[in-house]
């Protein structure tokens, strides 16, 4: 790469680290929260985005 490889490749590696890092952190916290919720409230026919009307009301006011 005309001797510039030592600058170009680290840039792409850094991008990979940053993107994967944030992705993994986000996925992990999502999984953990789902875990916590499952332990606190045994899953009925609840999907991650569903919920009964009481839930919907509550979430609408207290994010």
């Amino acid at each position, binding site marked *: 790469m005309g001797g510039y490889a030592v*600058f*170009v490749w680290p840039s792409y590696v850094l991008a990979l680290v940053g993107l994967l890092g944030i992705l993994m952190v986000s996925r992990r916290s999502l999984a953990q*929260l789902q875990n916590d919720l499952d332990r606190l409230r045994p899953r009925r026919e609840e999907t991650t985005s569903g919920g009964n009307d009481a839930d919907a009301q509550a979430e609408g006011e*207290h994010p």
Partner: protein
Amino acid sequence: MHALANPNRFLKLADAIQPWAVGICILCFAIGLPYGLVFSPADYQQGDTVRIMYIHVPSAWMGLFCYGVMATGSAAYLIWRHPVANMAARASAPVGAMFTALCLLTGMLWGQPMWGTPWVWDARLTSMLVLFFLYLGYMVLGDAFEHREQGDKAAAILALVGSVNLPIIKFSVDWWNTLHQPSIFSMEGVSVDTAMLAPLFLMVGAFQSYYVVVVLMRIRAQVLQAKVRSARLLQAAE
């Protein structure tokens, strides 16, 4: 937009969007990366270092874009109490901070071969550095309160104050830069060959779709967090 204020309804929409975002992201990376790294031409003046641009410029764009989302979401939250807008703002902050940091670091890696020194107080890089600190302040402030709602409101106000300040800071840094630096060091002069536009747009597309994937994930996490909190409160009350 007000129809989406209900988090559960928003999450249903998110479920529908997510697979598309993932697909577009993978596609853009699959085409953009080899294109940028190998198949696109090297620059006449800068040689292969121009390939850093395919990371640096999209990161810079995303750094600003995420702050825009933060500011807009914060405004919607403060004016209309739109809960999803606030969640989008909070979700975007770490992603935006990461992109800004990536922009700064790749800027340094680009600067060393281009200018012979890793850091230069170029107007754009300096503004990006300040932007990074604005992100940091927002994230730390949001988490510094006992009640999450206090943090949400404080951070939202800070995001708006920051967005008013950002153009003022850019203006000041531009002026300061012309005072202290010959224009050789400006990044403004990089002209982009049309053959380079395609990988550039592909990488921007890749980063944008990545953003959608991650932010939707983080919003979902915030909704779950609220449910966990209320479930815990219920449990404690029993």
